[in-house]
């Protein structure tokens, strides 16, 4: 019985202009997506090559430092740590172009002191610290609209509205709802049939579009996809299905509430605009004003002030504590330099970590608040699976911090094996002067974390359940005629 209605719904939808529009638009958008992300400007491959070149350069520098000595390695640091470009960026762009793609763990060459004068009797460099680059500026807001699967998913939610606004109200107006209901079929079955009819009608063109998209990507060889990526793509198709499903229930809810289909459409469009654009923007602005992040200048000033205090404590003209150069023969002075360096490292690390943590907290708050929208949940879950967007950068930073500790621990452990060393970290003269086998140096491992996917996916499922319940209750209470 249900299948008769499902088949009728599908057939009915197939004969509509909206379906013709969707079947034309979706594959076109999907092919355009594959071409833009796969081929335009060298596509993902070019970005990946750049990443590998930079990583190789960084490794060579690390190798050179390790070949010199452990002390040199401890001073210079592991180098530039780059975030691997996600091959699934075409699914969820996550505004990755404005998000930093690396962190620096390298001694800044500009922070070296030339030496050779009275005030600076010898040359030296500040040891490395973990520094976070600033986000890239993007002047044109239109450039931020990306033709990724997330955008296509949002478009799908719009199409879903067009397919459901009259699903029940239209039947009521035509007098066919009462005719259907005069048969041996319950309201729940009618609702389920309506849902399935709309779901199949919407998912089939979407599936065709996705297949065409993946076919273009595979045939062009522009983005190589491994087994794990295919699984994640499958997960994303599931997310698209969940988004479409939630909007079908929402559409059925409004459609059952109103007697005029156009009224239902107006309500649905309003809801869609609020969920997709208005509320996320408003909440973003609200969160930004609620707890404004200190500006770069403010942070720089604060950093300069704190570093100046350290300088004053340790160096000329008020202190003569670091008058002498550190050396293996003078552990006392070397220890003093270590105290000085550690104080600077601690201050720089604290300020840099605090600044970025502040930004992350604000992003997290904005995300938490906007997750009442199924569209936002869909976007966050897609970015989580694609490993793009702010959360993937947060995850990258978390791993970079862990690596900072691992690298420091390695230097200290390795140094302990050299009995000739003073074991004074992080002063070059206080550490082992023996070369290090580069293979023993821990490498940065960026592990993917899909933890951030769990909450939005859970919420998306919850939205489906909630919208199903309200649609069901609303239809049960609504007039048949």
């Amino acid at each position, binding site marked *: 019985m249900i299948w008769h209605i499902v088949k*009728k719904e599908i057939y009915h939808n197939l*004969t509509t202009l909206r379906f013709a529009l969707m079947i034309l638009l979706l594959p076109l958008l999907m092919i355009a997506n594959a071409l833009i992300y796969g081929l335009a400007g060298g596509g993902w491959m070019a970005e990946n090559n750049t990443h590998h070149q930079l990583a190789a350069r960084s490794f060579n520098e690390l190798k050179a430092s390790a070949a010199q000595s452990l002390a040199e390695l401890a001073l210079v640091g592991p180098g530039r740590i780059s975030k691997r470009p996600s091959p699934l960026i075409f699914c969820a762009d996550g505004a990755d172009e404005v998000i930093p793609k690396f962190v620096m763990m390298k001694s800044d060459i500009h922070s070296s002191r030339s030496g050779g004068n009275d005030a600076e009797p010898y040359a030296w460099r500040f040891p490395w610290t973990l520094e976070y680059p600033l986000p890239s500026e993007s002047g044109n807001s239109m450039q931020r609209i990306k033709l990724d699967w997330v955008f296509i998913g949002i478009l799908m939610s719009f199409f879903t509205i067009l397919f459901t606004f009259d699903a029940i109200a239209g039947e009521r107006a035509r*007098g*066919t709802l*009462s005719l259907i209901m005069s048969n041996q079929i319950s309201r729940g079955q009618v609702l389920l049939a309506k849902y399935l009819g709309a779901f199949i009608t919407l998912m089939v063109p979407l599936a065709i579009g996705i297949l065409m998209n993946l076919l273009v990507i595979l045939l062009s060889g522009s983005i190589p996809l491994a087994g794990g990526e295919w699984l994640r793509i499958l997960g994303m198709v599931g997310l698209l299905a969940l988004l479409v499903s939630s909007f079908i229930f929402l559409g059925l809810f409004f459609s059952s509430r109103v007697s005029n289909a156009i009224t239902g459409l107006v309500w649905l469009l309003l809801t869609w605009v609020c969920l997709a654009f208005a509320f996320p923007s408003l909440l973003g602005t609200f969160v930004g004003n609620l707890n404004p992040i200190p500006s770069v200048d403010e942070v720089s000033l604060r950093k300069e002030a704190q570093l100046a205090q350290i300088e004053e404590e340790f160096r000329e003209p008020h202190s003569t504590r670091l008058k002498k150069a550190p050396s293996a023969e003078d552990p006392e002075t070397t220890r003093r330099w270590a105290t000085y360096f550690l104080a600077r490292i601690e201050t720089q690390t604290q300020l840099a970590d605090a600044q970025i943590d502040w930004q992350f907290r604000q992003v997290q708050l904005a995300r938490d608040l906007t997750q009442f929208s199924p569209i936002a949940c869909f976007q966050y879950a897609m970015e989580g699976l694609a490993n793009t967007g702010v959360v993937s950068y947060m995850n990258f930073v978390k791993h970079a911090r862990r690596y900072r500790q691992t690298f420091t621990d390695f230097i200290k452990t390795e140094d302990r094996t050299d009995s000739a060393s003073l074991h004074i970290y992080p002063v070059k003269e206080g550490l082992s002067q023996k070369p290090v086998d580069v293979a023993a140096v821990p490498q940065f491992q960026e592990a993917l974390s899909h933890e951030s996917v769990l909450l939005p996916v859970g919420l998306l499922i919850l939205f489906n359940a909630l919208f199903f319940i309200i649609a069901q209750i609303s239809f049960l209470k609504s007039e048949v005629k």
Partner: protein
Amino acid sequence: MLQTRDLTKVYNETVMAVNALNLTVNDGEIYVVLGANGAGKSTTISMLLNFIEPTSGTALIGDIEIPKFPLEAKRHLAYVSENVELYRNFTARQNLAFFAKLGGRKKVSNADLDATLGRVGLPEAAFTRRVKTFSKGMRQRLGIAIAMMKNAQAVLLDEPTSGLDPKGGADFLNLLRDLREEGKAIFMSTHDIFRAKEIADKIGILVAGNLERELTREDIAQENLEALYLRYVAGYEPAEEDSE
């Protein structure tokens, strides 16, 4: 046989739509219920189809209590509504096939469909035409075809003749006669006293949810139905010469 027993519907605990309605429609009988707008005609039909729950009382099709076993009851009920537009992008045949399957027909051949469409007087050329090109009369015929195809024990018609021209109305009544001949219990609501008088075996006059009068075929022949209607429905006592 279709029956109501003290069938009552009260909206929002204050508005009495139907008050303890008792009526019986026997097989092979046409029962016409007359009444003004808001008299409770459509509410009665809605309760008979379980579109709405009665506040109290019950209705039966055969020995099946409709509010208790609505799905089972609906197997024996067919419905023709006032303004059925049907699926405009579907042909007459497609509309009929869909509702026939929904009505429980396992297999429906084109020959079956065409036979029913022909029986209700639709021209053959219209069988494969989209319903959006149909006149109201043609759609009503298709509505009757849908009811016929279901082959239910009782047929409920909610003001089916409104908006039909005299020829369309007369043809429609002929279709009802055919259904009566087949032994169906037919329950029809209308404002049209002339058509009611022409076709009804029983007439009930509903006023503010109360069945004020029930007339048998003999009563209809003897009584001045127009005068009765004006008295009960319009609250207007016609002068002697008016009612002549």
